[in-house]
């Protein structure tokens, strides 16, 4: 039983990261019906930017570890958000009226561009976060040894998701985002500046990806320029699992995927970990083709 809960916590921490990245996919899909394949690479850029800022400005030394890390995550979110907005301007807006395929090709191109850009700037080797930023404390909760960082990663993910959910559901701008997701033309007639909303979505989505990147770097220590691919793929699956285009769906899908992976690896076979996750995905999609929380609308596209 102890083993089960240990794995459950492992799965939730990994799932929280998946969920944060999945939010970027799902928001962009929601308003533009576009899979932003470059999203995983924006996540990579976030973790590299975090490393560079940490190494050059020593934010953690002036402000103490926790305030410093909070500032670091905010800075990286802002920077990656800006990159996301530029990406939309340069790669997606010109092809918005074109065929769907053009946008997909443009997204794939952006992904290759970003991962090679990271390689050229920071080099192909693995890079490492400074080791001693956060105290490595292990808490004992009900007889379970849980690293404090693991809980912090999970809590940060959950609170970012909570803020986003509140923003989208309760504020005027959030309402505008939801309106644009339903119908661009009608939103424009209602006086919503659609371009601005799309830019905003490309600010928030990549910012969350960037935050996930920093947390991965802080917790696991090691970053490299190809890591966006595997995390991006997993997060994309999480978004589909929860119902792509649906914000709570992405959160649920991410956490669920993390837990399924951890439990499958722990109790069945680690080599079959991805296989188990994909079987679950296929089963869910057979019975609920729109994902767990996806709306049941036939002509959603």
């Amino acid at each position, binding site marked *: 039983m102890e083993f089960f809960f240990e794995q459950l916590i492992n799965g939730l921490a990994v799932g929280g990261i998946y969920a944060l990245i999945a939010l970027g996919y799902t928001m962009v899909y929601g308003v533009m019906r576009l899979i932003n394949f470059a999203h995983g690479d924006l996540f990579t850029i976030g973790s590299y930017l975090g490393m560079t800022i940490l190494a050059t400005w020593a934010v953690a030394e002036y402000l103490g570890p926790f305030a410093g890390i909070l500032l670091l995550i905010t800075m990286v979110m802002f920077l990656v958000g800006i990159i996301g907005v530029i990406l939309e301007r340069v790669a997606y807006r010109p092809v918005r009226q074109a065929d769907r395929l053009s946008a997909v090709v443009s997204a794939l191109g952006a992904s290759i561009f970003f991962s090679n850009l990271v390689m050229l700037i920071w080099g192909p080797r693995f890079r490492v976060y400074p080791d001693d930023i956060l105290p490595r404390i*292990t808490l004992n909760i009900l007889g379970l040894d849980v690293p404090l960082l693991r809980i912090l990663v999970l809590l940060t993910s959950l609170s970012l998701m909570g803020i986003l959910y509140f923003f989208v559901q309760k504020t005027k701008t959030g309402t505008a985002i939801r309106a644009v997701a339903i119908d661009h033309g009608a939103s424009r007639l209602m006086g919503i500046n659609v371009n601005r909303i799309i830019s905003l979505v490309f600010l928030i989505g990549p910012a969350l990806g960037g935050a996930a990147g920093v947390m991965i770097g802080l917790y696991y220590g090691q970053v490299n320029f190809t890591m966006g691919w595997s995390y991006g793929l997993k997060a994309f699956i999480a978004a589909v699992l929860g119902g792509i285009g649906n914000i709570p769906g992405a959160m649920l899908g991410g956490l669920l995927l993390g837990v399924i992976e951890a439990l499958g690896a722990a109790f069945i076979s680690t080599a079959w970990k991805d296989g188990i996750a994909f079987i679950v995905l296929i089963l869910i999609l057979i019975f609920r083709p729109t994902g767990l929380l996806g709306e049941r609308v036939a002509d959603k596209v």
Partner: protein
Amino acid sequence: MKTRVKFLVLSLAIALLMGVGSAWAEIRIGLMCPLTGSWASEGQDMRDIVLLMADEVNAAGGINGQKVTVLVEDDGGDPRTAVSAANRLATRDITAVIGTYGSSITEAAQGIYDDFGIIQIANGATSIRLTQKGLKYFFRTSPRDDEQGRVASETIADMGYGKVAILHDNTSYARGLADETRGLLEQDNKEIVFFDALTPGERDYSTILSRLRRANPEVVFFTGYYPEAGLLLRQKSEMGWDVPFLGGDATNNPDLVSISGTSAAEGFYFLSPPVPQDLDTPQARDFLSSFNEKYGSNPGSIWAVLAGDGFLVLSEAIKATGSLDKDELAAYMHNELSIEGLTGAISFDQHGDRVGELYRLYRVDGQGNFIMQE
């Protein structure tokens, strides 16, 4: 339309003729390596080393008075990209090619070089079957997996461990080494308490580590690559579990220590061909001093150093035979060649496999240095 086709054919023919014409002016050697993709750091080291050695040879007057030109192509660490890279190199009139890193990538390019009659000296291709196909022009400076499996099982036996966990990563290399070692250990009546794979390229291996701990092994043999090995060591020390880890030759990379942190890496054992730093030969010393002078550090990866060995082998063969003929060169390399390389003595058997005992046992010390064990 027709005139255009004719013009194309004509210009192609001219280009080909000119290509052949230049062959007598210089020795053209190809280098196929992963400059991009997951193994980009290996490939860039390979390029640095081979270009450095070619520059030195040229500064000393070339081989038999002829300049050496190295043509570099990126295989992306990917079999499909490797096929097009091999085709590009093969049609550019090269005598021989050095590379590449990764058995599956080497295998994808092998047939192409053989069709064109180009000598290939692979540097990071340990899969057994690569030399079992009867390819006349294929050589490798890297050792073979079965050799490593034998050394691994002997090492585990020497250390006196009885309950062994084996962890691989489902790549054909790591899986092959894991199977090989398991077979030998079972013959030796050791108990294999755990045999499974992790997914490479991830960050979180705490689940597999908790499973390993439950199996309660006396030693863990990990046959995968250094990024995962580094993370395993780091997360293992976070768990407060101090079982000894033994790694395969793909863990020999200084980045291992930076990924895991120095204290977590201390006591980690791995098998590897000796790095030049541990060889007291003039070849190794000269190479290290010129590499340090140009790049300001020791070479990172043993596999890239083995590409340098490939270059030494080629230049020696061309020097000794005085010929660029593939059959003469191959015959010389199979039968007569015997040189002191950057990783010790090099000669080849009839299959193109490197002869001799190559593996050493290394241990990571408290400062993160790799110390060769006697």
